[in-house]
């Protein structure tokens, strides 16, 4: 694997200049996610619009670049989605990083930038990092569903 295939400029841009790393004061749902073994800690905020769709998604916390970039990409992707659509995307992302979903066209079309993290499927020790935000969102939506 090439050194920059995962840590490329687009990926690094989400790490060094995140768009969604802030808290939402009037969020409808707030949920914590942790990876105890890495020390990654994430707080995820969701605001819904009048139709129940995700209006805004943001996060705070700290962790490795993979977990933070993943959270930033996910937050961007979730705007305008219904909870059901969001859950389906979480499942698709999980399939991608665990290697069970390999349809590149489908992944790029549905996951947009987050499809950049496909290489994580070759790095078993980093799967949990990549999944953190998505797992947190999934738990949040299921608890409030």
């Amino acid at each position: 694997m090439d050194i920059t295939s995962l840590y490329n400029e687009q990926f690094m841009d989400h790490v060094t200049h995140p768009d969604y790393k802030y808290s939402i004061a009037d969020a409808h749902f707030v949920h914590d996610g942790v990876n105890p073994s890495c020390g990654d800690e994430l707080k995820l905020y969701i605001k819904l619009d009048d139709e129940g769709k995700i209006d805004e998604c943001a996060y705070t916390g700290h962790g490795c670049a993979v977990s933070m970039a993943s959270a930033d990409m996910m937050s961007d992707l979730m705007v305008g989605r219904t909870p059901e659509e969001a859950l389906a995307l979480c499942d698709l992302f999980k399939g991608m990083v665990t290697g069970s979903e390999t349809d590149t066209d489908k992944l790029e079309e549905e996951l947009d930038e987050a499809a950049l993290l496909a290489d994580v499927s070759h790095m078993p020790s980093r799967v949990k990092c990549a999944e953190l935000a998505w797992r947190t969102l999934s738990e949040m939506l299921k608890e409030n569903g």
Partner: protein
Amino acid sequence: MGAMLSPDELRQIELSPYKQDFPLLANNPNLAFLDSAATAQRPAVVLDAERTFYETMNANPLRGLYRLSVEATQAIARARAHIARFIGATDEAGNPQADAIVFTRNASEALNLVATCLSEAAGIKAGDEIVVSIMEHHSNLIPWQQVCKRTGATLKFLRLDDDFEISDKEIAEKIGDRTKIVSVTQVSNVLGVTNDIKKIAAAAHAHGAYCVVDGAQSTPHMRVNVRELDADLFAFSAHKLGGPLGIGVLWGKPEILDAMPPFLTGGEMIDSVTETDAVFSPVPQKFEAGTQDAAGAYATDAALTYLEDHDMDALEARERLLARYLAEQLQQKDYVTIVGPADPARHVGAVSFEVRDIHPHDVASILDMSDICIRAGHHCAQPLLNYLGHRSTCRASVAFYNDKADIDKLMVGLDQVWGIFHGHH
């Protein structure tokens, strides 16, 4: 602060004459394996020994009455004697205490055995104190936590001073009349520092307590002498010194091992059994229920022979130079902070460090793409990292088969990591 390596010292570590003996290293010349503190590579002679055992003497040891089984039994006995000599476990007359060598699966199992069985023999109860250090690997911490939960005893910690040492004052304050067991590591797997076991054992004995030593990180890197240390029990793993995975060793003073009840029970550890009771075999069989990994014991014997054939003192001296060079080179990088003593000469094998504002997992993943293997995380020592105010660190560790090029490669790799996070790669 130690002086930088001299030109002569640099020449000594320039090339490794040992890599050719290690198939994995010989077959992967681009690999910079800097994680020997987790597990060492194995020389061909060890792999050959494992195969030789299965090809020429494979039988269930101890029970068979035919010659093949006797050979397997003898292979284990020879390994026990060799291990005893290797760690200085000799009686007054200088004979190796082969029967005081107990085989386990690993150092963790050996330490679990000690925690469970020594606690019972010592009658640990509420009000008693067990003392460990804050730098223990979880293997020498959680078993004692469990003992304390079961018995109501209190677990106390020897903490470190600003120079990563356990001070005399700390020893005097924590080890006292209530102390029944002191269990400490000889070398820290995170900081690379060496603890003064002789001093700690003397303090334990002065209060009538037992001294247990985790030798997992010391035995591969220095001559260990359990008699000189005056340890009561000593545990280590074969795989960290070039032996096979799955073999751990526990040595104990014979009278202490005799007084301890068995750990696991079943086959191969009894003299006679009735419907309701059993008479246990003497040590070491008492602690070795089930069929033992005789091939692993035989291969461990070969690993020790390899180390001795190449002069343990020379290997230790080389490792000291490599560790010093590693620490010195890391100190040259303004974006790297060493977690541990500033003196490069105090690092035995391992150096932990942080790359400023970059998570250790990212550092390790990026290095991995250049075939550089380091460890990143809490190194099974979470209480130590919390105590030092870290969540995780990077750790590079060396063995004698490493060379200057491995460390130089790490330094180039770290610059690359820094560059990726700062927009110039």
